[in-house]
């Protein structure tokens, strides 16, 4: 089955083609056909991924590396770029949860989007197209195919965020997402080409393939490798919403909630982390870039959490939470714990998708209400939603026994172990904030009295099974998904770490960092600190939102500046607009006036004037007088005679 890895992207592609071309007509016949084409497509992809995974497990660790070439895309001189897929532990891990979670969300979407008339097929087409692009991204064995997927998910993100494009704000949110993505992609392309040229000049090898590049990464000077790493990371900040290019993610909540779950929780935003993990040999060769990655990740995690503390829109809180958790992932890969970052990707996909789906369920029940000030008391009316949401909150807070605990603990533990104490501290404080704001959401939404409007109250109902079943499955995964990475300290075998390690070393026997080892005591201490911080966060949230309801108000009045900064997202959007947006617009105006009006139009007017003038002058030859013409005739004859003879 490994040889048939190309089936994984093929199924969604077929889904796109059928639903895209025939969708409009199929929808008129029956909506069922559409989701019966789209969902099984992803399901089959998951099945194939699973089968390949099992085959891979049967092989010894050193042999788990296959590159399957499908066809030769283009060849130019020495460069040859193929459509080829790489099967190794890292890529298959990504493929598993991408297709798995994707499949669950496809099923959820059936219930969520069924009432949208005339657009059902469009939604599933875009969703399948997204899956196709994402799979290409993670399975690619060369930068070019990866970039294809990279751009593809960006496009699908735009299409899906602005899905209800009749609303101007939604359309503009889609544009914003795509533009910030594009800025990042600029960095990615520059990094890609710099890598290509440097490697080519130093070794004479012109290639975009990962294995060839990483085998020769030592030939690249360290400074250049650092720059490449930074440029590629710029692309990652755009795609994975880190500082400075994160501002599109909160606005991206304009799209349907399943879209937020899939793209902005589980898959697209993790593409950046995957890219850094995949290029581990390169980053290890240029350590400064890796340090920047970790730093940006840590700061973003903290920074996003501060903004999540005060938001009123339930989806926005979860969005900021995503940015924050992505910061954790970058922190993980940045401290040389690549497997830890990837582990967090996997667990995060489970509970974050669950959080979004739960929020979607709540919004669906409240007929579209997203403001938490108008929620409350839904615990009894939406039991399944409540319990799954609770499980997700516990997971993200890092409570022992749930998946989030293991992945977060691995990241923070490795950070401390490798000497990044400042980042460890930042991460731990952020963990406290995380548990606080997540439980704030839980308490505001589900506990207390229902503050919804009367009309809305009447229609509150639990979601249909197509929506609740995926949530339940994700809840189970949120609990048990962490057990693949139980550290040795607690008696586990840390399987995921060992599984993923071969992906990060390409024939480098020498490991670049000195592996520290913490004593068992320190490890236990760190775990306990983490748990205490998490529980503290929950307790404070409980105090503020269950026991003493006036506390938030009083705090806000006591520290108005902090509150405003947090609530208004630190005014970053406005800063960008003023610093960059306005000057560019102004520049555009100036250029229009000078270049377009004067020069381009002037050139056209000049030609017009010239033609007119010449025509006007030549007019006078047409006298209509016979003898006038005779003179010219004669002149011509005479000249002919005298010049020829």
């Amino acid at each position, binding site marked *: 089955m490994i040889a048939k890895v190309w089936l994984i992207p093929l199924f969604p592609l077929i889904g796109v083609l059928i639903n895209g071309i025939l969708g409009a007509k199929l929808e008129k016949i029956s909506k069922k056909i559409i989701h019966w084409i789209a969902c099984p497509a992803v399901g089959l992809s998951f099945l194939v991924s699973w089968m390949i995974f099992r085959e891979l497990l049967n092989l010894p660790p050193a042999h788990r590396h296959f590159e399957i070439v499908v066809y030769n895309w283009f060849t130019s001189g020495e460069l040859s770029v193929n459509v080829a897929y790489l099967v190794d532990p890292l890529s298959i891990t990504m493929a598993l949860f991408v297709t798995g979670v994707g499949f669950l969300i496809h099923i959820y979407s059936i219930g969520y989007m069924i009432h949208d008339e005339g657009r059902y097929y469009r939604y599933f087409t875009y969703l399948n197209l997204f899956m196709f692009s994402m799979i290409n991204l993670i399975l690619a064995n060369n930068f070019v195919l990866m970039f294809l997927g990279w751009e593809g998910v960006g496009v699908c993100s735009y299409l899906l965020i602005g899905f209800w494009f009749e609303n101007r704000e939604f359309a503009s949110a889609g544009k914003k997402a795509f533009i910030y993505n594009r800025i990042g992609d600029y960095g990615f392309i520059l990094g890609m080409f710099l890598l290509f040229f440097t490697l080519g000049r130093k070794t004479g090898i012109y290639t975009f393939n990962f294995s060839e590049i990483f085998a020769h990464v030592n030939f690249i000077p360290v400074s250049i490798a650092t720059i490449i790493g930074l440029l590629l990371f710029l692309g990652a900040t755009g795609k994975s919403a880190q500082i400075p290019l994160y501002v599109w993610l909160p606005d991206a909540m304009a799209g349907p909630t399943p879209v937020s779950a899939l793209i902005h929780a589980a898959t697209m935003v993790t593409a950046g982390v995957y890219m850094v993990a995949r290029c581990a040999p390169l980053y290890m060769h240029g350590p400064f870039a890796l340090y920047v990655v970790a730093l940006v990740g840590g700061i973003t995690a903290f920074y996003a959490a501060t903004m999540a503390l005060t938001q009123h829109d339930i989806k926005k809180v979860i969005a900021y939470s995503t940015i924050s958790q992505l910061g954790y992932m970058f922190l993980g890969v940045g401290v040389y714990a690549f497997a830890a970052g990837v582990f967090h990707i996997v667990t995060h996909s489970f509970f974050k998708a669950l959080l979004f789906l739960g929020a979607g369920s709540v919004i669906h029940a409240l007929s579209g209400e997203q403001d938490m000030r108008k929620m409350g008391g839904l615990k009894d009316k939406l039991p399944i939603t409540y319990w799954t949401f609770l499980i997700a909150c516990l997971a993200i807070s890092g409570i022992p026994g749930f998946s989030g605990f293991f992945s977060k603990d691995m990241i923070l533990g490795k950070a401390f172990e490798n000497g990044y104490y400042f980042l460890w501290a930042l991460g731990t404080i952020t963990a406290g904030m995380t548990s606080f704001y997540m439980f704030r959401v839980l308490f505001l939404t589900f506990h207390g009295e229902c503050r919804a409007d009367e009309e809305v109250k009447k229609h509150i109902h639990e979601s249909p099974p197509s929506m609740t079943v995926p949530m339940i499955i994700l809840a189970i995964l949120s609990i048990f998904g962490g057990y693949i990475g139980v550290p040795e300290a607690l008696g586990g075998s840390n399987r995921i770490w060992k599984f993923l390690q071969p992906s990060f070393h390409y024939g480098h026997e020498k490991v670049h960092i000195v592996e520290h080892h913490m004593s068992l005591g320190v490890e236990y201490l760190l775990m306990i600190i983490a748990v205490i911080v998490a529980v503290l966060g929950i307790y404070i949230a409980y105090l503020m939102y269950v026991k003493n309801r006036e506390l938030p108000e009083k705090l806000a009045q006591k520290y108005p500046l902090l509150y405003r900064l947090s609530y208004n997202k630190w005014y970053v959007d406005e800063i960008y607009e003023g610093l960059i947006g306005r000057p560019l617009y102004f520049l555009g105006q100036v250029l229009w006036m000078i270049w377009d009006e004067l020069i381009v139009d002037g050139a056209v007017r000049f030609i017009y004037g010239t033609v007119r003038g010449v025509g006007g002058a030549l007019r006078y030859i047409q006298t209509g007088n016979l003898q006038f013409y005779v003179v010219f005739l*004669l*002149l011509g004859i005479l000249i002919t005679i005298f010049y020829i003879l």
Partner: protein
Amino acid sequence: MDVIIFFIAVVFAMGSAIMVVGAKNPVHSALWMVSTLFCTAVIYLLLGFDFLAAIQVIVYAGAIMMLIVYVIMLTSIEEEIKRKYKLRLFQIVGIAFIVIFFIQAVRYGMVPLHGWEGLCWKEIPERFGSVNYVALKLFTKYVFPFELVSVLLLAGIAGAVYLAKKEKNKENR
């Protein structure tokens, strides 16, 4: 003897031609034209082409010029009196070019062949240019152009008749 006649004829031809171009009255102009043609016919005769000279006088000077006088009478009687002698610019330019041409042509065409040595008539072959000889040539070597010319003349007649026909049901004129 012949030389004297020759030169008189040449002078008369040149003078008549100048009068053709310069005469105010178109009828006068036509008559001077007849004179020019007649003088050329004389020179043809002196050169030994009797048949041609005869044809020239009958056809050219006789039929064609008569036709022209006819049409002058029909059309341009009123034009006699008013004659402004203003020359336009293009006309002056044209005249200049022609003068230049004339000078160049004389210099390159005539002067190399210059020779005023006596006219020698004795070298004219006996039957050269006589009617018999012409007729012989006309019906053997040049029979094809001969036939064609007759067709051409037919076409000319038909065309002229058609062109000048008055439209039916025309009140005025």
